[in-house]
């Protein structure tokens, strides 16, 4: 996704929504809460959102998509859910449980796609395992009109800290070549990631990272992040722009404009 494509009609900052926290809202399944989410999305003209799949919020997210035409972009894999299952069923068991829940057609497609990677699967290769989980989560989003797939920041940052560029490169290839979508990397360490991606020659479609005037979660430092942004030609989709409500929307957007960032994410229902 080029920077130009991501701009709003007025060359302004496009606002997107972050949904993973809605399942923490005790009232989220209620019709009143759903109406409030819809109102918030309409009010800000939000047409796209990011979501990490949790079965409990399936209905709410599907309703938002159907009523508002909201494109829902996956944040994958849901490592927290996976680790929860892994403690009960083991590492391999948790993967197979996910596989068994897929439709037969998706099972066949994923199995065929992974045949040539069988030795890595059997050797419990980490990158292969993560990409298999990504593939198993993507079918749930098919009906939600996604344009972009974000690699969960906890996975990106784990791969980054261990110099595992193969995982990041393979993720970008899988999403863009096999699924024809924009591959984005979520991170809380943008300053390090941008520099390492350039050194490795890995070029994702976008990076989702915190950018805000307080420098909150801009690691290793706001200055490093801003410098890395200037030197990188990979689009940044800014997250945490309002810093838990401490920054006003206008101030947040002005800051992004000043950096040449054209898309920012707000947390729905906060």
């Amino acid at each position: 996704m080029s920077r130009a494509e991501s701009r709003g009609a007025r060359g302004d900052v496009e606002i997107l929504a972050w949904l993973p926290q809605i399942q923490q809202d005790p009232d989220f399944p209620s019709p009143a809460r759903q109406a409030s989410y819809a109102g918030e999305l309409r009010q800000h003209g939000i047409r796209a959102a990011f979501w990490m799949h949790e079965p409990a919020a399936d209905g709410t997210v599907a309703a938002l998509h159907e009523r508002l035409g909201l494109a829902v972009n996956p944040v994958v894999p849901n490592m927290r859910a996976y680790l929860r299952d892994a403690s009960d069923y083991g590492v391999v068991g948790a993967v197979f449980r996910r596989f068994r829940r897929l439709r037969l057609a998706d099972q066949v497609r994923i199995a065929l796609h992974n045949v040539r990677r069988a030795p890595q699967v059997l050797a419990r290769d980490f990158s292969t395992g993560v990409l298999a989980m990504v593939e198993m989560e993507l079918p749930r989003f098919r009906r939600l009109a996604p344009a972009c797939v974000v690699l969960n920041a906890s996975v990106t940052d784990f791969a980054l800290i261990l110099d595992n560029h193969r995982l990041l490169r393979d993720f970008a290839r899988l999403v863009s070549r096999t699924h024809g979508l924009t591959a984005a990397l979520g991170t809380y360490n943008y300053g390090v990631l941008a520099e390492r991606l350039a050194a490795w020659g890995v070029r994702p479609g976008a990076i989702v990272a915190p950018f805000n005037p307080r420098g909150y979660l801009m690691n290793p430092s706001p200055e490093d992040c801003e410098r890395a942004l200037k030197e990188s030609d990979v689009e940044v989709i800014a997250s945490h722009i309002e810093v838990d409500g401490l920054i006003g929307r206008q101030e947040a957007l002005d800051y992004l404009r000043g950096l040449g960032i054209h898309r920012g994410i707000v947390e729905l229902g906060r």
Partner: protein
Amino acid sequence: MTLEKTDLVLLTGAAGFIGRDLVAYLLERGHRVTAFVRPARARDLPTSDRLVIATGDLRDRDALALALAGVRAVAHLAARKSDEPDSVEVNVGGAEALVEACRAHGIRRLVNVSTQSVKLPRRGAYGETKLEAERVLHRSGLDVTTLRPSVVYGPDVAGVFARMRHFMTRLPVVPVIGDGQWRSRPIHVRDVSRAVVACLENDATIGEIYDLGGPDEVSMDELLDAIGAALGVRRRKLHIPASAGLAAAHVLARITERPPVTVSNVLGSTQDTHCDPTRAIRALGVAPVGLAEGLEGMLDDEVRARLGGSGPLLKAAVVGLGKMGLFHAALLHRIPNVRFVGTVDSNPSLRDTAWSMGLRVPFFRSLDALLAARRVDAVLICTPTFAHYAAVRACFARGAHVFVEKPLTESAARSQELATLADQAGLVHAVGYHLAYSPVFERARAIVTDGVLGTLRSFRAAMQHAEVLGPKKGWMFDPSRSGGGLVRNTASHLIFLLEWFFGSPARVDAKTTRVHSPSIEDTVSATLEYPSGLVGTVDASWSVPGKPIMEVGIEASGDRGSLAVKGADLWLDLRAPGDGFGVGRHRIHASDLPQEGVYDLAPDAGGAAYYRQDHGFVQACREGHRPRTAFDVAARAERVIDAIYASAARGTSVSPA
């Protein structure tokens, strides 16, 4: 000649493997350096006000003449090494051009870095052209010394050693041309740099040709095994007959411009040269480091190059490759002044998984095996709780500092025993209560202990998590192995914070309930009474749907005000001014507090606090101070945990023992 600090030294091939190290070494010693490099390689060099970068090619006589202006001595390292078609032009013609340019500038002193390949009975293009270059230089009338190093190792990215290392880390079977018995004397790149400078400083070496090698003469198989031992891998070797290797190299030379193996490589690694560094050691006063020590130093240097820092590195290992073990192992890759030297897990299948993640360090099946094989300064124990006690004792017996994931043990008595043992041993010890490194909790504690709230009256502490939403299996749900349920294993975070904030309670009255787990508690409600009159309540559950992220909150009030901590926020409501705050309500957000220089592995799960915690432990080990989560503090918190269990079992309030 005596090389003065003010003398300018020119290096050809300054951006190569040896060249980069020699530039760094000369700069470290205070010399002025002109680096003569091809334009594309200029960015590979450091910046320094004592370093001039001159771009050009040895065949470009004008560029060479320009670079030599003001130069007192030359170290000649530039060469074509891969049997390129222009090897003669660069290696021999370049030497001729260099001689001519030196003469034109009145420069007499030159140290030539050649190769053992010139001594081979049967030479390839590389050996042949380097031998011819030696002849050109030594017949020139200049004051020339030549060094012929054996295999040079160090933090290289592209040379012969780098290729060996790459094969060892990436391939399941390592191809070796010949029978693996070819012998060399590997020498660390820094020793080559030292030797070059020693030659420049010693006129007695003029006209001499020295073999340069390390103290260990090893076969190719032994060299690969030594690399494997340093990196923590064992690889089978596939010996390819020399004739087949040579034939393949000839074919590759015809079909590709940059063949992975050249004829010179094959000839150089199948014929012994009997490298004898005795004369060099005697004449130059350089005693090269042994292979094992040199490889260790190389890995240390790589950490320093990546993360900065200076002085000896703390050698740290992680025991237990579950979720927390992987977390800490990953963080150790980002913390300055520490080198991660090994992982331990009883499950051997985790070795390849950990390796595939990027944890490319030696793997051991047991802690004893690690401690026997490696010098380890600090161990991070992330095993199930029941294994902590023995592991900590084993580490202390070997003089290693210890970090243990929470809880320290299954009982306060055992934890106290370890705390006493730790202090007797004079070692650094810490428990993984990472919330004590969260800037928001850190600030809240300072407000409490500095008396900003006045005399404390009450607190409410709560923890909610969606971790156990049905019957679960595993050691944590077996009280004989975990020492308890929610209270010991998760709410211990909260209990530790309370101990750290308010000290030890005098009485505890608690109730626990089982929601999903047949053998352990899933919730707890407790009242804690303190000698000062402070009274607090604790409510915790790991069976709260809709809380995928653990939420921990503390509210405290005193006669001058109150505070509440939750998530990234600290709310302060003061009736009297204090700590720079006026009367009224104040919000302190995590973004108001110091946050620079961290690596965040997931802020929702306290990622930056984990970094600070591990960084703090490393610093404590290096500087010998006590971390805030030391064993004795943890043992006090675990006495409260024991009291909660005792009170819940008896149905009465109890005093922590």
